């Protein structure tokens, strides 16, 4: 079953064509590395999949539903590019931020149950960040902040993870731990993963598919068959 189905997708920013006729499908359990040169439209593609950027034409289906009708946001975990989205001045603790990841499936008035708090506790343990739960997000290091945001993306037990340059703030050891966590999620829980990176070699090591774009799809398939364009 395709989790994501994109057909002839085009996106325009003002006069700038950001994506043109992009088509691809991602199946349940796929682990896709999305890459391309600067300005290729990688982040735009991720944001368009989430409905954050308006498309000019084409269609997007998530979990076999048209994006315009899709409401089950709890199925998707999103980790934005570091520092691009979140407001570090907000005096929130890590625990408060991780809980936000559970809001996607809640109805008004949105309240957290004891079960929700227990899930957050489990997530703190599984990412080894329990000691950060009551720390202010603004006082954490870049790597710690990234782990908190990752915990927020994972806490709803999503079926699809979209990660935009997730390892940029992580040291080598944290990066290894991060990738082994993704591998576990992908292999044991069949979580579908799309992660954006500039590091082609990491896609070869970790992902089972490569999506290379430069405003349009240049290559989509197994990493081993890929020849990097000049």
């Amino acid at each position, binding site marked *: 079953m395709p989790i994501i189905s994109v057909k002839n997708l085009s996106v325009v920013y003002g006069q700038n064509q950001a994506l043109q006729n992009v088509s691809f499908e991602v199946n349940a359990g796929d682990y896709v590395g999305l890459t391309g040169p600067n300005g290729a439209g990688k982040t735009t593609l991720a*944001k368009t999949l*989430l*409905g*954050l950027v308006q498309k000019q034409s084409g269609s997007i289906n998530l979990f076999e539903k048209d994006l315009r009708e899709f*409401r089950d*946001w709890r199925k*998707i975990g*999103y980790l*934005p590019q570091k520092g*691009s*989205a*979140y*407001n570090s*001045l*907000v*005096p*929130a*603790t890590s625990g*408060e*931020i991780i809980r*936000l*990841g559970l*809001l*996607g499936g*809640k109805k*008004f*008035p*949105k*309240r957290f149950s004891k079960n929700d708090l227990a899930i957050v506790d489990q997530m703190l343990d599984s990412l080894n960040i329990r000691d950060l739960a*009551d720390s*202010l997000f603004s006082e954490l290091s870049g790597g710690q902040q990234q782990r908190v945001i990752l915990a*927020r993306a994972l806490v709803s037990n999503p079926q699809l993870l979209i990660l935009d340059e997730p390892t940029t703030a992580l040291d080598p050891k944290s990066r290894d731990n991060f990738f082994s966590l993704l591998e576990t999620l992908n292999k044991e829980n069949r979580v579908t993963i799309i992660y954006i990176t500039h590091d082609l070699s990491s896609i070869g090591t970790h992902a089972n598919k490569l999506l290379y774009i430069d405003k349009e799809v240049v290559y989509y398939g197994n990493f081993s068959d890929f020849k990097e364009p000049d």
Partner: protein
Amino acid sequence: MDLFVLLQYSFVQQAFVAGICVAALCAAIGLFLILRKMSLIGDGLSHVSFGAIALGLFFGVFPLYVALPVTLLAAFFILQLSQKTKMYSDAAIAIVSSLGVALGVILVSVSSGLNLSLFSYLFGNILTITSFEVYCAIFFAAATLIAIILFYQDLFYATFDPESARAAGIKVEWINLALVLVTALTVVLAVRMVGVLLVSALLVIPPVGALQVSRGFKQTLALSVALAVGAMVAGIFLSLLIDLPTGATIVVVNFAVFCGILALKKIPI
């Protein structure tokens, strides 16, 4: 002057009730505005309300009846300008704010006898508000604070990370619109109490003070409201006690509390 005797007067009681409502309202709304880098929207909208009040006085209409729709429109316009054009919200606020003042000044210059009435709105007077205004303050503060409690998680998410909040299906644009419209209503309400020139102090100083010491978003919101209410009560008492202008005294007390927090945190200025 015996404060307990003063408290027997209905105008003093009304001032306390309305003051507490407006202080709590401003502090709660102000926290969200500051964290969205929109601290000056209160200042801008109060300047617009100045122009609208002058318009009302010029045409002989109760000024707040004109100020309310005009300020709401201005808030909407500021939001549209900052979202649809290549401009930060502070620039949009500056444009709308200066237009409000300019229109007010033109109306003052072409009319006679307007200056005195307008003067009372520039500095406000919480001791002269009517029962109707007190009921408005109670109703509006209660409605807004209940809305903040009900939509707390959405507001928090949209403030911390608007993009991910959108990706979680939260209507961030609606939240932004509601926030600026509530700010406009709050400003119109507060103008009668502390005046056009001092409204933004109520929106900015208590939340900024709370941000220095709180650990957690809920705690910051609660402390911001508590500081604002405390400063409002102390300011009204102090102004009655030593016969000072009430609005200005409230602002000075707020500032003193803020300085106290900086001193406690040992932050050198």
